[in-house]
């Protein structure tokens, strides 16, 4: 095997290193801001490292009115529930749309997607009113319901694409071997769909984790999620950069860990399409 010239390898690594630096610098800067002492943070001289790191902001996040622990807990509950509900409904719906030919199928699929064409704000007041009448306002359930109205249609469309790429012959073979439709789905289709489901799940999780507008409208102090908690640190006359950046760092740590374990499946899901076997 012909070895790559050393100069080319060095160039590749330099480019990769620069890309990495470009991507990671904002996170470094966020972390640095979160540990800078007050005088250095608001001083006129810009420093790229601090000699006196101060982790007070991290403690203050949990002890002040921001109550970041509660916000993190709420965000996890909402994002996880939304992901589970959406994936359950969307996987089955996508399978039905892909495998069954029934009258009105195309129209239904189009109507499904129409929901995502409306600006969020148009649905804000009606949804608020509905949640209030259902006594769901200020509960995590209201957010899960609101988010699924947007994530289910999109996920259905996304999963239909994946399922359409799976050859029917695999299920037919399973059914010839004695499986019914449900067993064929669970034993053959579902395992093959796993990377796609993970990719879709990550998308849903990200949407729910980051969403602000509904979270701000449908929650109160007790049920507040991370985006709202962080936004409350940006006031009319100033920004609490230390708390804001500390919150940003704490927000991305658990998600980074999750991504670290899911990334292999995620890449598989995003590049799915190849026929197995």
């Amino acid at each position: 095997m012909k070895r790559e010239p050393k100069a080319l390898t060095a160039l590749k690594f330099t480019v990769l290193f620069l890309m990495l630096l470009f991507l990671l610098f904002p996170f470094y800067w966020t972390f640095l801001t979160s540990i800078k002492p007050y005088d250095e943070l608001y001083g006129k001289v810009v420093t790229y490292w601090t000699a006196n790191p101060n982790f007070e902001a991290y403690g203050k996040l949990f002890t002040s009115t921001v109550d970041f622990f509660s916000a993190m807990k709420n965000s996890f509950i909402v994002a996880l529930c939304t992901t589970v509900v959406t994936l359950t409904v969307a996987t089955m719906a996508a399978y039905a749309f892909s495998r069954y030919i029934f009258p009105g199928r195309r129209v239904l699929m189009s109507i499904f997607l129409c929901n995502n064409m409306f600006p969020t704000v148009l649905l804000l007041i009606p949804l608020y009113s509905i949640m209030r009448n259902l006594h769901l306002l200020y509960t995590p359930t209201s957010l899960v319901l609101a988010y699924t109205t947007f994530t289910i249609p999109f996920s259905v469309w996304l999963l239909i694409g994946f399922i359409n790429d799976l050859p029917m012959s695999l299920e037919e073979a399973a059914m010839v071997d004695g499986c019914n439709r449900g067993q064929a789905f669970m034993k053959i289709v579902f395992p093959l769909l796993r990377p796609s489901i993970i990719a879709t799940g990550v998308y849903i999780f990200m949407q729910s984790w980051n969403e602000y507008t509904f979270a701000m409208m449908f929650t109160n102090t007790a049920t507040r999620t991370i985006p709202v908690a962080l936004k409350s640190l940006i006031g009319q006359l100033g920004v609490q950069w230390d708390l804001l950046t500390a919150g940003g760092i704490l927000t991305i740590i658990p998600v980074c860990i999750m991504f670290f374990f899911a990334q292999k499946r995620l890449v598989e899901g995003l590049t799915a399409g190849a026929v197995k076997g």
Partner: protein
Amino acid sequence: MRKRLVTRKIMAVATAAAMAASALTACGSSGTQATEAAKTEAAKTEAATQAAAAETPKAEEKTSDEAVTIKFQYWADNTDYSALMQDIIKKFNSENGKGITVVGEEQPWDGGAYAENLFNAKMGGSDVDVSTWKLTSTPLFVNNDLLLDLTPYVDAMDTKSDIDDNIYSVMKEAGGDSSKMYVMPWNIQVLYVYYRPSIFEKAGITEVPKTYEEFLEDIKKCTLDTDGDGKTDVYGFGMRGAKGGQEPWGSFVHGEGGSFEDLTSDASVAGMQDFIDLYTNGYVPPTATSDGFNEIIANFQSGLTAMTIHHTGSSGKMEEIFGDDVSAFPFPAGKGQWTSMGDTETVIFSSCEHPDAAFEWVKYLATGEGQKMWCEGTGNVPVSKTVGAGDYFQNNRFMKASLDGESYAGILPIRDTTTEWISDLWPNTVAQALTGDITAADAMQILQDGLWK
């Protein structure tokens, strides 16, 4: 070979993690901003419902002995203010003696979208009774019958005279009906003139200007070439030509007897001409056309300017830098007198089932212990004369300058055009006038047409 593979793998995982993290940073708002069209549509759809609701008799007002709960929504600029507000609420709940319990719910300021979010919530039937407020939001809520007219409550208030009549007038003006007051004053920021006593001394000025004409003269005197190289080292005045500059500019227009109602009058044009003359004659930094808040403050703090206009929000830092070598005076009177007022108020919503109890709370914030606690804790200027007369405010020269300006402080007319006028039209037009592209009269005609079209 294996080592290279491992290195590649680590690089790939790190890059993927960084990309994932950047996509997941929760502080990035993915929420869509409300479009004007959507807002209008929503307003129209719900207007009928609201009108119908207004005709329905309200739930019977409970007697003062019964326990009532008032839901109060507010924004806080930082966690200290948030904790302070919770303390005020606790104090009120334990001391009001009327069975009123205020439940405070904090919402983000959201870059000014607080009012828009509140509007959406109220249109959706939110049960918020009282909220903190900005005057600019008043027309939208009044036009949709969402606010309670506070006039009868204020008229019956035993502490009514504790607030300056001028403040009440500004509140009424915001609602568009001089006979009705929908907004209760809470705290304000009054613009005043910062000056450096040491520069005044160098310029031979022995006392602060008492008239508008003296003020203009002192600006000229304070423009100094301190090292004798023929170049100006200290400019008399830090002019704000970028967005936000309409506030100090308004004082010049009124100083010549002009007004916002008729920007094309001779007096208004004369005020604009004064503004232009300061720039063209070199009494303000040459960067004034693009100087915003940060620049005028930095120029003053670096000693480049001898005077500038701002409010108590920057006084702490000024004192930290200059100690006793910084002071303030209210914008002096000429043929007229005006200074800009930043505002924060409270409102009671028409859907509130216990308006008497709600008013007890807003009164506590305006003239009671809540006023004292909030203003002392945040450094805002009190609207209560009694609170303002206290040592804490009288012994602070910046607070005193603010309080002295309270009687003639005002706001720009609140119209549909105001936001665009402030953001684009005023800075662009004034920049052209300062650089001599258009005359003062032409500039004022453009500004008049833009504001009152």
